[in-house]
C-alpha cells in the first residue's frame, strides 16, 4: 500500500495545478464585455433614436387613443371598445410617459447635448433642443404636470412642474434651439442623414421650431388668454411656410421593413378592425362636401384611405396648414378678423378648397369655420384634434358614454408613481383624468352649452 504522506503532496499539487492555470478564468474577453450591445454612441445616432421615439408619441397609440376620444376614430372591437368609451388605466399608458425620459427621450437628449457641445456643433445641439421641446410639449399635452426642471438630476422624488410651467420651459428650449440653428461655424455639422426630414437644414428646423412654439402657446390659451394668442401669432408668422417642409414620419420601407404606424396597426400588427372612422367625423366631411373625403377615408374598409393605409405613407405631424390655421385663429382671437380670414383661406387653398363663404360673414361664423378647419386638418396629426377639443369644446361632441366626460389626460405609469412620492395615485390626480388647464368649459367655442359638462 502506498503511504499516505507520499500521496498528500501529489494530491495538493494536482489541485493547485488546475487552479493555477485559471488566473484569468473569471474575467477578460467575452466574460467582461457584452458582445451584443454597444457602450458608446455619437450625438447624431442618439438623435436618430430620439426621432423614432418622437414619431411614436405622435404616430402610434397616443395618437389613436386621443383620436378616438376626439371622435375622429371609433373603437370597434377588443380593447379599443373600452378605450373609445373612456376606460383607461395606468397599464394602458405604461411606457408612453417613461419614454419621455428614458432611452430615446431626455436621457439621450442630454447625452447628445453634451457630445454636441464638446464638438462645438451648434446645429446638432439645436436640433436636439427643438426635439426636446417637441417631446416635452407633447408630454405636457398628454399628462399635464411633469417632472421637467428637476428631471435627470438623480434626485429622489423630483417634484412635478405644473403643466403651465412645463409649457414655459418648452418655449425656452425651443427658443434656445432656434438661437443655435442661427449659428454658422464650420463645426456645425448637424445631424446630417440621421435627420430623416430635413437632413439637418437649419432653416427648416427653425421654421418647425416656430410652429411648435405657436402650437404650444395655443395649448396654454385657456389659462393665459390673449397673451397666449398674441405669442402664438408672433411665432406662427415665422413658422412652416411650405408643405414641402412639413414635419413627417418618413419610414424606412427599404431595405428594411419599417412602416407607417396606422398601416402596421391595421395590417402587420394584426389589429385590423380594432378601429374605424367615427361616423360623426364622416358625417361632418360629407355635410361640408369636403374634397378631402377620399384622401381621408376608405368607407368600405371603414379605415383610413388606401393612400394613408400604405406602408410607405409618411404621417404628417406638424404641417404648414396647421401653422396657417394657428395664425388665423390667433389673429381672430386678438381682434384681427381680416388676417384670420386670409390665413383661413390660405390654409383651405393648400387642401384644395376654395374661399370659405360662411367665414366671410366674420364673427362667430368665422371662428366656427376656423375651428372646423382645424378639427378636420388635425386628422392623424398626432394628438392635435384632442388638444383642440380640450381647449375649445369644439366640435361640441356628445360623450361616447352618457354621464362620462372625455378624459383630458392619460394616467402616469405605475412604475413612475411608485418611485416618486410626488405622483398622485391613479384616478385621484388633480381632478380625475383632468388637469388644471382643463377647467370645465360650460360653453363650446362653437356656440351653445358644452355637452361634455
Amino acid at each position, binding site marked *: 500500500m502506498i*503511504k*499516505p504522506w507520499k500521496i498528500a503532496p501529489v*494530491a495538493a499539487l*494536482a*489541485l493547485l495545478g*488546475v*487552479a493555477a492555470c485559471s488566473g484569468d478564468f473569471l*474575467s477578460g474577453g*467575452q*466574460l467582461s464585455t*457584452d*458582445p451584443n450591445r*454597444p*457602450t458608446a454612441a455619437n450625438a447624431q*445616432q*442618439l*438623435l*436618430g*433614436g430620439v426621432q*423614432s421615439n418622437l414619431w411614436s408619441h405622435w404616430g*402610434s*397609440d397616443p395618437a389613436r387613443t386621443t383620436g378616438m376620444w376626439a371622435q375622429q376614430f371609433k373603437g370597434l*372591437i377588443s380593447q379599443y371598445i373600452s378605450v373609445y368609451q373612456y376606460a*383607461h*388605466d*395606468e*397599464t394602458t399608458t405604461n411606457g408612453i410617459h*417613461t419614454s419621455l*425620459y*428614458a*432611452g*430615446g*427621450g431626455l*436621457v*439621450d437628449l442630454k447625452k447628445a447635448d453634451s457630445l454636441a457641445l464638446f464638438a462645438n456643433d451648434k446645429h446638432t445641439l439645436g436640433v436636439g433642443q427643438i426635439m426636446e421641446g417637441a417631446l416635452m410639449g407633447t408630454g405636457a399635452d398628454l399628462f399635464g404636470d411633469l*417632472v421637467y426642471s428637476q428631471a*435627470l438630476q*438623480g434626485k*429622489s422624488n423630483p417634484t412635478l412642474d405644473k403643466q403651465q410651467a412645463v409649457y414655459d420651459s418648452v418655449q425656452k428650449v425651443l427658443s434656445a434651439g432656434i438661437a443655435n440653428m442661427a449659428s454658422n461655424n464650420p463645426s456645425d455639422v448637424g445631424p446630417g442623414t*440621421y435627420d430623416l426630414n430635413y437632413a439637418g437644414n437649419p432653416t427648416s428646423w427653425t421654421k418647425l421650431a416656430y410652429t411648435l412654439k405657436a402650437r404650444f402657446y395655443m395649448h396654454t390659451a385657456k389659462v393665459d388668454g390673449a397673451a397666449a394668442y398674441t405669442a402664438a401669432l408672433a411665432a406662427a408668422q415665422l413658422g412652416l411656410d411650405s408643405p414641402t417642409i412639413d414635419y413627417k414620419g418618413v419610414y424606412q420601407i*427599404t*431595405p428594411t421593413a*419599417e412602416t407607417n404606424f396606422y398601416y402596421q*396597426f391595421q395590417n*402587420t*400588427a*394584426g*389589429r*385590423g*378592425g*380594432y378601429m374605424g372612422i367615427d361616423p360623426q367625423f364622416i358625417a361632418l366631411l360629407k355635410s361640408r362636401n369636403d374634397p378631402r373625403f377620399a384622401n381621408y377615408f376608405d368607407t368600405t374598409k371603414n*379605415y383610413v384611405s388606401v393612400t394613408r393605409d400604405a406602408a410607405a405613407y409618411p404621417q404628417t405631424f406638424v404641417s404648414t396648414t396647421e401653422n396657417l390655421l394657428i395664425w388665423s385663429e390667433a389673429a381672430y382671437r386678438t381682434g384681427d378678423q381680416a388676417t384670420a380670414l386670409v390665413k383661413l383661406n390660405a390654409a383651405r387653398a393648400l387642401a384644395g378648397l376654395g374661399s370659405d363663404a360662411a367665414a366671410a360673414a366674420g364673427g362667430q361664423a368665422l371662428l366656427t369655420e376656423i375651428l372646423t378647419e382645424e378639427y378636420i386638418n388635425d386628422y392623424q396629426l398626432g394628438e392635435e384634434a384632442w388638444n383642440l377639443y380640450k381647449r375649445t369644446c369644439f366640435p361640441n361632441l356628445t360623450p361616447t358614454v352618457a*354621464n*362620462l366626460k372625455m378624459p383630458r389626460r392619460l394616467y402616469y405609469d405605475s412604475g*413612475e408613481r411608485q*418611485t416618486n412620492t410626488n405622483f398622485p*395615485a391613479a*384616478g*385621484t390626480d388633480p381632478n*380625475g383624468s383632468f388637469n388644471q388647464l382643463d377647467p370645465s368649459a360650460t360653453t363650446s367655442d362653437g356656440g351653445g352649452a358644452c355637452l361634455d359638462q
Partner: protein
Amino acid sequence: MLKRILSVIAASAMVASAALAQSGTTISGRVTNEAGAPLPGASVFIPSLNVGTQTNDNGRYSFVVAGNRAAGQTVGLTARIIGFTAKSVQITLTSGRDVTENFALISNPLRLGEVVVTGAGTSTTREKLGVTINTIDSASITRAAAPQNIVSALAGKAPGVVVRTQSGEPGASADIKIRGGSSLSGTNQPLFVVDGVPIDNSTSSTTGGDGGTVTANRASDINPDDIASVDILKGSAAAAIYGARAANGVVLITTKSGHSGPTRYSFTSSTNVDNIDAGNMALQRSYAQGDGGVTAACTKTNCAVSSNSFGAAIPTGTSTYDHLNEIYNTGYTFDNNLSVSGGNDRTTFYGSGGLTNQDGVLVGPQNKYNRATFRLKGSEEVSSTFRVGGNFNFIDTRGNYVQQGSNTSGVLLGGLRTPPNFNNLPYLNSLGLQRPYRFPNATSVVALEGAGFYDNPFFVLNNPGNRSELDREIASFTADWHPSSWLAFNETLGADNYADSRLQSLPLTSAATTTGTVTRSDENFLEIDHNLTATATHSFSDNFASTLTVGQNLNSRRDRALASNGTQLLAATPLALQNTVSQTANQNESLAHIESYFAQATADLYGQLYFTLGVRNDGFSTFGASNRRSNFPKASAAWTFTNALGKRDQKGLFSYGKLRAAYGETGKEPPVYGTITAFSTGRTFGSGYGDAINTRFGPGGIASSTGQGNDALRPERSKEFEFGGDFGFLSQRADLSITSYSKHTSDVIISVPTSAAATGYSSKLANGATLSNRGIELAFNIRPIETKNVALELGTQFARNKGSVDNLLGAQFITYNNEGFTGAIGSSTLGYAPGVIRGSDFIRCGRGLKLNYDGSGVKDIDAICAATPGGYKNNALFLGANGLPIPDPTDRVIADPNPKYTMSYTTSLKLWNKLTFSGLLDVRKGGAVWNGTKGILFAKGTSAATDVRSTTNGQFGVNFDTKIYPNVAGPGVGAVPFNNMAAWDAWFVGNGGGFGPVGEQFVEDGSFVKLRELSLTYALDGAWVKNLVGFTSADVRIAGRNLHTWTKYTGLDPEANLGGGGFLTQGVDYFNSPQTRSFVVSISLNR
C-alpha cells in the same frame, strides 16, 4: 458520479485480477423478501473479488468465479436491492464446486443503508443524512408517466415539488418549482445534473413565451428509460455544495449502468393512446354570428362580417359545429427502448437506444415529436486503484409544432372564437386562400390585409412552417483513483452541447401577418464542467469515523444564438428566408465562467450521531468585479435516537427514529452581462399592440437601454433552516417523514423600478429584495399486507409552502411584463408569494376608494355604498346609476397562482408476484388561474355562459353573476341594465369581457384532484416465455395517465400554463391546450 451499486463495488476494488479462467465456481440462488416473494433486479456480488450479477424476474441469479480466483478462500457474498436491508454471508470458493445461496431480505422502507448521491462527487448513506433528499426510482418514473418529459413525470412524486406541464401538445415544456420560488427573475427552475454533469434545462421560446408554438424544456431530451433514479436536493442545506447555482434546488439524475455478469437484454415497447379532457369548458350552440341580436352573414366576396356571436338565435335545423372537439383527435405515442448491459470483473458496459414517436392530439400532420437517443456507458478498472469511466449520450429531438396561445394565428384562439353556425371546413376558399370566419370570401392576399380576423384553426393545423431540430451530446469522462485505503480522488469532466435549429413561420394570409413571415433561429449551447474531489476517510476509534472532501469545480457556459426574421413572402412556398422581401437578423452571444472550491467534513459518532459541515467558495464571471467571490456554508446533524435506545434491530411498535437539523446557504447568479450598462441598437418605439419603429433602421439610430446595469451585483442568497425526522413503526411496516423548513432569500436581484424622470432609466438591476418561503413536508407510507402472495402499500404526501416577498427595495411591486397582457400582468408584490398576477377590478365597496368615477369630481365610494338601502357589505360590487359595475383604474393583485397545499396519494398492490396494480392521485388546493380564455369567449359571445343573453331582466346581484358577485351596492341597485340582447352584447364586448380593462372577473380557483396515474402490470416468467419468445421474462402493462380531473375550474385545464417553463408567472390560461389523457399498453422483454 458514483452509482448507488457501483460505488460499493468500487470502494472495495482492491484485488488485482490475474490470468485466464479455469473451470471456476458457479454461484447461484434466489433472492426473496421475508415473505418469500422474489426480488427481481437485486445485486448479488462478492465485494472482495468485484464480481456479481443481478437477479432476474424470478429473483434468481447465477454467476461464475473463474477457477484461478477460486482458491479455496472464504469470501463475503452480498445481496442488495433498493428498499431492503443488504445481507452478506460467508461462502468458500473452491474451483469446480458450485455454491447455492438463497437470500431473504428484510424490507427497509426508509432505505437507510442505501448510498445516496449528495452532489459534486460526494455521497453518503441515507441513514446519515441530515437533510431531505427525495429519491424517485426508475419504476415510478416510467410506470405510467409520459414517455416524453422527465420533468412531467415528477408530478406528485415528491412533497414540495410542484410540476406544471404547459399543455398536452407534443414537445411542450414542464415547469418545476421546489419549495416555492426563491427568485424574482428568470425561471426559478432547479439545476439539473446528469451523472455528475450539469445540463441545460432552459425553455427558450423563439417568438416570445405567450404565443408562437410550445417549446420544450431541454431536460426533456433525456430519455426517461435511461434513468435509474432521480435525487431531488430540495433545500439549501442539501444543495449548498452547488453554491450559486442551487437556490432553486438541484435535480440529480443517475442513469443506468452495466453490472458484471451475464449480458442482459431488455426491450420495452409501449403505445400511448392520447386524447383531451375538455374539463368544464362549454361553448354555446344557440346564437349565430352577428351583433346585438342581429345575425350577420357574408355572401359577397371580400366582405368582413362580425367578429362576434351575438346574432339572433340559430333557427332549428341549421347545422352548428363543435369548435372545440373538431380540432382534436386521438393522438398516438410509440415508445421503444432497447438496452444491453453487462460486463466482467473489470469492465462494465450499458448501451441503450430509445425512440419516441409522438403524433399529437391536434388534428393534422403538423403536430409531431420525435426523439431518438442512444447511450453508451462503461467503466474499466485499469488497476486495483484506478478506474476510468465514460458516458456518452446522443440525442436527436425533432418536432413539428402548431401556433398556439396568445397569437391571432394560434389554433385555439381562432377556433374557439368561431361562431357556432360557421363551418371551419373547408379552411381554404375556392381560390385557395384562407377562409376565416370573419372574412371567408377573400379574392386576394391584399384583400385580407387589415381585415382583422383570426386564423381558421384548420389553416393553422396545416401550416408546415414550425419545426425544431435539435442534436445534443452529453458526454463525460470519470476517473477514480484510490491511492490508499483512506484516500480517494474523483475527476468528472463533462460536456453538454446542443445545436437547436428552428423554423417558425406564418404562411401567406395568416392573420398575424397576412404577407407571411419566416423566422429561422439557430442556437448553439455548450457547457463544460470539470469537477475534481479528494476524499480522505479516517476512523479515530470504533465510535468516531470521519471524512474530509475537498474539491474544485470549473465551468464554462457558452451560448450562441442567431435568429433571422424575414417578412413578406414572395411566393407562397417555400417558407424560407430567401423567399421573403426583407430580413433582419439578431445575434445573441454569451459566455460565463465559474471557478469554485469546496470542502466538506463528516463525523459519525457512536453509530447514531452524524454531522456534516461544508463550504463552497464560488467565483463567477457574472458577479460584479467588486464581488467576485462568495461563500456558501452548510451544516447538518442527524441523530438516530432509536440506536441510542438500543433498538438497532428496527423491530416493535416504534421501530426507528431519526431527528435531523440542517442549515445551508445557496445562491443564484446575476444575469449574464447584468453588470454592464449599454446602449441598444435595436430599440423599438411604438405600442403594445405591435406597431413599432426601430432605431436601427435608416441610417441607424442608437438609444439607451431602459434598464441600467450594476457593476456591484452579487449572487442572490438563500439561507435555509430545516428540521425534521424520519420514523418507522410496526417493525418498519409504516414510516413517516416530516420536514419543516424556513428559507430566507436576500440580495435578490430585481430590475428595480427607478424614476425615469429622475434617472433616465426606468429600472436598474440591483441586489436587495428579500423574500421568504416557509413550509412543511410530510410523507407517510404503510404496508398493511406483506405476505408471500399479497403486498399492499399505501402512501400519502403533503406539502405546504407559504411564500412572501418582504422587500422590493422600496417598491410596492415589480411587474414582469413579459406576458403581453394588459389585463393580467405577472408581478412580485410585497406580502405575496412571487408570481402573483396584477390587474384591475371593478369598483368595490369597503376598499376606501375615492374616485372620480363619473367625471363629476372625486367621491367617497364607501360613503355612497353606505347610502344603499340596507347598507353594504365589504367587497360588494359597486353599481353605477345604470346598474353596471365600473372599472376601478387602480392596479392591484388579482390572483395568486401559488397553491395553498399539494398532496398526493399512492397505492400499490402486488398479487402472486405477478400482478401489480398501482395508482397516483394528485391534489392541488388553491392556486388561482386567470382564465383569459373565458374572458375573450365572453367578449366574442361563444362561451356557453353567454346564453344568459335571453334574459330580459338581467341584473347584477339578482340573476346575473351572483356566484361571483353575491353582494351589490351603490346608486345602480335596482336598475335593470340588461333588457335585450343588444344590452348583453354591449356588456360582454365592453367591460364585461376579456377585452375590457377588468381582469379580476376572470380569476378562478384552480384547485383540482387528478387521477394522475393508474397501472396494472402482469409479469410472465414461465419457461414457455423463453421457449416462445427467447426471453426469460415479459411484463405486460396497461396504464392510464391524467384519467380524470375533479375541479370547479371552468376552463380546459386548471394546470394551464401559457408560457411553460420559461415563465415566472404561472396560472395564466389563454387559449392553450389542456394536458392529454393517455391510455398506455406496454410490453417489456428481458433476458
